[in-house]
């Protein structure tokens, strides 16, 4: 199947966005947990930093990642004329 160049570009942008957001997801989850013992000396709102991140911070970041993705992709659909009919 011949794939038009604009559509390839849409897919490339999608992959780029997905990849970058997954890097954020990975850092927030695994890198912070890996260094948890070293970060425990710092506090935030009375919580040790790793505890705060595990209990609240990471959750905020996850919600934000999904919000950014949905917003950005929904706009990209319009830009590249691949959006669905409004129902």
């Amino acid at each position, binding site marked *: 199947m011949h794939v038009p160049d604009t559509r390839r570009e849409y897919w490339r942008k999608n992959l780029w966005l997905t990849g970058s957001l997954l890097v954020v997801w990975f850092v927030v989850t695994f890198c912070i947990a890996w260094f*948890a013992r070293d970060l425990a000396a710092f506090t935030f709102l009375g919580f040790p930093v790793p505890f705060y991140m595990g209990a609240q911070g990471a959750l905020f970041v996850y919600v934000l990642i999904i919000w950014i993705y*949905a917003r950005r992709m929904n706009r990209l659909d319009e830009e590249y004329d691949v959006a669905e009919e409004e129902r």
Partner: protein
Amino acid sequence: MRAFVQNLKRYYSFFTGGFVMFVLALAVAEYMGMPERWIGWTFMAATVLLYASIGILTRTADVVEYYVAGRRVPAIFNGMATGADWMSAASFIGMAGTLYQKGYDGLAFIMGWTGGYVLVALLLAPYLRKFGEFTIPDFIGARYGGHAARSLAVVGTILASFTYVTAQIYGVGIITSRFLDINFETGVFVGLGGILVCSFLGGMRAVTWTQVAQYIILIIAYLMPVVFMSYKVTSVPIPQLVYGSVLEKVTERENEIMADPAQITAREDYRARAKEIDAQIRDIEYRLKPVPAPAAELDRLRKERAEDFDKAQPITHHAEPFPGQTAPERNAARLNFLALTFCLMVGTAALPHVLIRYYTTPSVKQARESVFWSLLFISLLYFTAPAYAVFAKYEIYTNLIGSSISELPNWVHSWAKLGLVKVEDINHDGILQLAELTLNPDVIVLATPEIAGLPYVVAGLVAAGGLAAALSTADGLLLTIANALSHDIYYKIINQNASATRRLTVAKGLLLLVALIAAYVASMKPDTILSMVAWAFSIAGACFFPALVLGIFWKRATQQGAVAGMVIGLGLTLYYLIGVKYFGMAKWFDISDVSAGIFGIPAGFISIILVSLVTPAPDRATQNMVENVRYPSLKGRGS
């Protein structure tokens, strides 16, 4: 569509208002002298009746309505339904207790069960919605072709969902039997009725609209006690915001407890008793002392030895990550934390009952937004759970530990009667030391209303919330299993000419059958089944995640690759967890059996890639299908 959404918002706002009024009315009735038993019954009867009426009102004989709720569930409502679908009896009742016991290390569950939604949002939901069929095996079957991949996916669905649904029905039995004062087996079958009234007549459509109502009930029930508790302890009614300061107080108190010599003697007494039991075990093992039933006696003694040995362990700080006596111990704890978080995340993103919820939105756009709403609604509970744990710890460490055993507060006695709290004065000093107190994890959520001094009506509300959590998850799971059997096995493989009526009859028959088998298994209270629930995440992750993700993102993935990946991923996971749990196999890198997916998931990816590269590329039609799934619409609106 807009009018439909407006109406839905109106209905559910009325419903929420009505539910709050109902709780207030019961509170007044309690104040006027309504007995506790009646309050429990009223709560159970009213909520189950409500679910039943939604189930009956939304009954359907249409295939698309039955399997995917007509694909017209707006993003925000699908988010709530996913929340209820996702949060099980274990999340609602057990998680705060797990966090109480494990401190920082328990946060693997919080991050794992929320972070998985990032993977759902970015890698799966929009594409599955565009594919737009009925089940997860459907996607595998269409993408890879042939019956082998589809059948394997059905096997994976059943493996991951069946133990899970059994545990939910078990949870329903526990809650109904405790609050209605009936025996456990009756409770299980009462609960089964509650589950079937929703799913049997209306399938996914009825389950969706019931789950939205169940989400509202469960979130009110979960937040209420801890909000009061927070107000009582800090005079700020937003627990999530202020528990940092309470955590600081807990840490101070932990330091005092660690320095207290009486705590050390209590622990030493437990260590001494563990050694005594050890000697008894050796006597029986070497047949030095004859006993009537050596196997049962050994089991009992080994369990007691493990309990006493646990109690002899030094106290650790709640907020300390990966506590351990030696560096290797701490490193193993860290590795297990990361592995567990990873498996829970990937498992979340691969559990069929969650993924099929994204088939029900009207569009790809709304599927993306819907994952956002799902996680927002789920987070509301998950970021409250650690607050529950910290408040409970504060209360117990300051008001219980170090006080006289003869003057313990009332809630300790009432839950001790049910066997959920145990107090033992091992060093005979009349004072309660930390090691002398045994708490069942469930007690943290169940007893918080009493600890905060709230009326019984709140305890009833918590029970209704727990019931809503268990019923909604059970419904979603049952439907997933029955639909995989009826749609993928019966319709797609056995009889492709079946009429719509026949398909629905088969689907409903199988639903009933699966429900009865699960209830029967649950009524036998099998310990093994319950401990196997945690496995569902590793199993689902290893079986589905690689095949789904590569199926979307890599056109070159072939049928043979997918079959190899699913067999090897699932096989390796099962081999590791069964080997470690039941056959004393040596652990690899100290990873515990629940995180078996840490080996199975990468093995699945590698096998799919390697086998795909040595087999011929998929045909044109398959590649077109993948291309089609990647774009919300290929027609374009501009042209």
